[in-house]
Structure formats: structure tokens, C-alpha cells
């Protein structure tokens, strides 16, 4: 790690597991649950959040000394909203179908609590480079959970991954379907997202006993 000092590297690796924004800090749940029925949507969402959080952290950290603290929430919201508009316009231009699937949830990145949370907790008190790393780290931690949930929901729900029929063709009865396997359509419905995240939390906390709540 020539580029990053040990302390800086910790900013990236910490949020991946022991300080994960979703399972430990409980931030940014809404989008994590709503768009994970497909793996592709989850990945795009993770990348969008990474862009907004990385850039936003840098911007806030650059102007942190000139924001009057009373109106900082509005300033933060404006910065996020501007970045989200960029993401939304890019998605509409290059991935129209996907932007329809994500529907209002692109806009809801604005109120994704991870973003406001990191601005408040980190960018307001640290330099731009460290804030950037913190943003990327937290977005990665968020992205990992999204990808895990998306992976299981798409695999078990429609038998595909990123649209590829990895388990065989349900109509032609090839692959697993030849053995009588059926897709669990229930995985695609909203309640299962909650239960899958609940199970991820369960697994994580059984592996690391320090995280258990009393």
C-alpha cells in the first residue's frame, strides 16, 4: 500500500465489514431493499451512490469552513441534489430501461441517510482526500450488501444472474429445471428483501460476537 497510509486504508476497509453502513450503522436501508430484486439494478445503484458519496464528501469537505452551521443541512441537500441530478440524467441518457426500473429510487439517493450521515460525521471535520476515501469506503460497504441481497434475490427468484439463465431454462426444462427445480417467485416480492437483510445481519453477528446488541 504505497499510495495509502495505514490509517487511510482503514477508512476504506472498516465500512466493508465491522462498521458496515447498512448492517451496523443502519443507514440507507430504503434503497437497499427496494431495488434489489435484480442484481443489475443493485450494481448500478451501488455505483451511483459511490459517485454521489465520493464527490459529495469532497465538495462538503472543501467548503466545510465557510458553511454557516445553522444552514448546513440545506447546503448539504443542495450539493447532494445537484450530484443526483447528474446521475439521473446520465442514467436516462445511457441506460433508459434501467432508469425506469429504478424509478424514484435514483431521486431518493438524496435522502439516503448514508450520505447525510457521512457528511455530518466525517466530511465536516476532515480534509478532502480522507473524506473522499471515507465516501468510497462507505459506498463500497453499502454496495456489498446490495450486491449480496441482489444476488440471492435474483438467483432464487428468477433463476438468472444479470439476466443470464444460470440455472437453465425454466420453459425448455434444461439444467436444474430438468430435475424439477422451481423458481421461488416470492423472493422477488418486497418482504423477502427485509428477511434476506435480516439473515445477513444474523450471519454477520454470529461471526463477530462484539456486534451483538444487548
Amino acid at each position, binding site marked *: 500500500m504505497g499510495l495509502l497510509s495505514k490509517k487511510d486504508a482503514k477508512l476504506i476497509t472498516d465500512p466493508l465489514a465491522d462498521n458496515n453502513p447498512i*448492517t451496523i450503522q*443502519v*443507514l*440507507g*436501508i*430504503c*434503497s437497499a*431493499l*427496494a*431495488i434489489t*430484486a435484480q442484481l443489475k439494478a443493485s450494481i448500478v445503484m451501488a455505483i451511483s451512490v459511490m459517485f454521489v458519496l465520493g464527490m459529495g464528501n469532497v465538495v462538503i469537505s472543501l467548503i466545510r469552513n465557510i458553511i454557516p452551521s445553522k444552514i448546513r*443541512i*440545506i447546503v448539504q*441537500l*443542495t450539493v447532494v*441534489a*445537484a450530484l*443526483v*441530478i447528474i446521475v*439521473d*440524467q446520465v442514467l436516462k441518457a445511457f441506460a433508459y430501461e434501467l432508469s*425506469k*426500473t429504478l*424509478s*424514484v429510487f435514483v*431521486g*431518493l439517493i*438524496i*435522502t*439516503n*441517510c448514508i450520505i*447525510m450521515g457521512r457528511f455530518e460525521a466525517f466530511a465536516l471535520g476532515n480534509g478532502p482526500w480522507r473524506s473522499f476515501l471515507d465516501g468510497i469506503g462507505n459506498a463500497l460497504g453499502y454496495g456489498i450488501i446490495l450486491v449480496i441481497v441482489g444476488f440471492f434475490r435474483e438467483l432464487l427468484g*428468477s433463476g438468472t444472474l444479470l439476466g443470464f439463465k444460470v440455472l437453465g431454462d*425454466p*420453459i425448455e*426444462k434444461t439444467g436444474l429445471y430438468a430435475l424439477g427445480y422451481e*423458481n421461488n*417467485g416470492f423472493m*422477488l*416480492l*418486497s*418482504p*423477502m*428483501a*427485509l*428477511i434476506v*437483510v*435480516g*439473515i445477513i*445481519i*444474523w*450471519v*454477520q*453477528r*454470529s461471526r463477530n*460476537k462484539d*456486534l*451483538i*446488541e*444487548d
Partner: protein
Amino acid sequence: MLEHIELFFKSIFIDNMVFATFLGMCSYLAVSKKVSTAVGLGAAVIFVLAVTVPVNWLLDQYILQPGALKWLGAEYADYDLSFLSFIMFIATIATMVQLVEIVVEKFSPALYNSLGIFLPLIAVNCAILGGSLFMQSREIPSIGLAFNYGLSSGIGWFLAILAIAAIREKIRYSNVPAPLRGLGITFIITGLMAIGFMSFGGMLTGGDEGAKEEAETAQVETVKKDTENKLANNTKVNE
């Protein structure tokens, strides 16, 4: 009148913000440890949603939509400012929350003391922005319906947080496996409650296919279509 009643029940039960679209989950999970605080936040959400959705409806109708600036004169008719919606909506919400806070503090100190701490939190609650964005994407036709939508979505959110807070107060006495305690079990209970709320899905359809399609949110719609296609395919195979 009938459409008002229909929208009212649809927003509370079928498209419940928490269970169908996962809006406002962060504060839903964070503030649901005690019933009394949950009631405070829930009331504040109803209030702010009922105020901001109609205001944003007016903004959308007269400033943001493609061609909405026609009232300024014919030469403004081709302007399309809809890309500004996010920033306008969030600015409205932040301002309204501030305004509501000041007004409530002035006229009803008692209400302010019970709602006060929650009001600033609400500006960044996804349920509020989500209400406005869904209002826009569902093309709600009149300001009366927009108010109705805001109010009833708020009530739906209130019901959800009240229910989970009551369950969490009771579950403290149960023997939950240690790693699941707290957050994990709350997620799973919410999932089970969402399954329960799914059964309201048939409430307003009454066999009318058109109404049924409207009742689904955009996301559920695609999912439904997927499953329907698959069912159709399966039956084809079976034949």
C-alpha cells in the same frame, strides 16, 4: 368522491410506504424502540407529508413539467424543467420543515415540545421526498388528490411505525437468539408484517383489471409482470 376514498385506502394499506416501497426505513428502524416516540415521529410525518405533497404538486404543475410555464406566455411553452425536480422538491421540503417548526413553536409550544426534536430529522426522511416523487411519477391529477395522497401515505407510515414499536416493546421479553437481537429481528418482523400487508392487495380490485394495474407501484409492476409471464409460460409447458 369515490376516487378520494379509493386513493385514501390504497395509500394506507396497499401502497403502504414502509411495507410496499420501503420509504423512511431509516427513521422507522431508529425511532421505533418506544411507542411514545414512535407516535411523535409518526404524527410529524403525517403533518409534513400533508403539507409538502400539495406544495410540490403546485410546483410540478406550474413550473417543472414540460410545458408547465405556459402561464408565463406562449414563448415559454416548450421549456422542460423537469430535471430540476429533485432540487426543487428537496428545497421545498427543507423550507417547509423549517417553517412548520417556527409556526408550531410560536402557536403551540406543547405540540412543539412533543414534535420538536423530530422535525429537523424529517427533512432527510426518505418518506417525505418519496411522497413527492411518487406523486410526480403517478401523475396525480388534482391538488385535492395530492393532499389526500400526502395525508394518507403519512397515516400508512404512522400505522407501520406504531405497529413495529408496539411489537418491539413486547419482544424485549422474548428469548431471541443473541445475534438476531435488536436490528436483525426487527428486519424479519417487518418482513412478516409486509407479507401480511400484501394481502390487502386484492382489497380494491374487485375483479377490475384496470384498477389493479394502477394499484401496483412501478417496481412491483415489473415483478408482477415477470411472475405473470412465468406463470403463463409454465401453463403453456404444462399444456
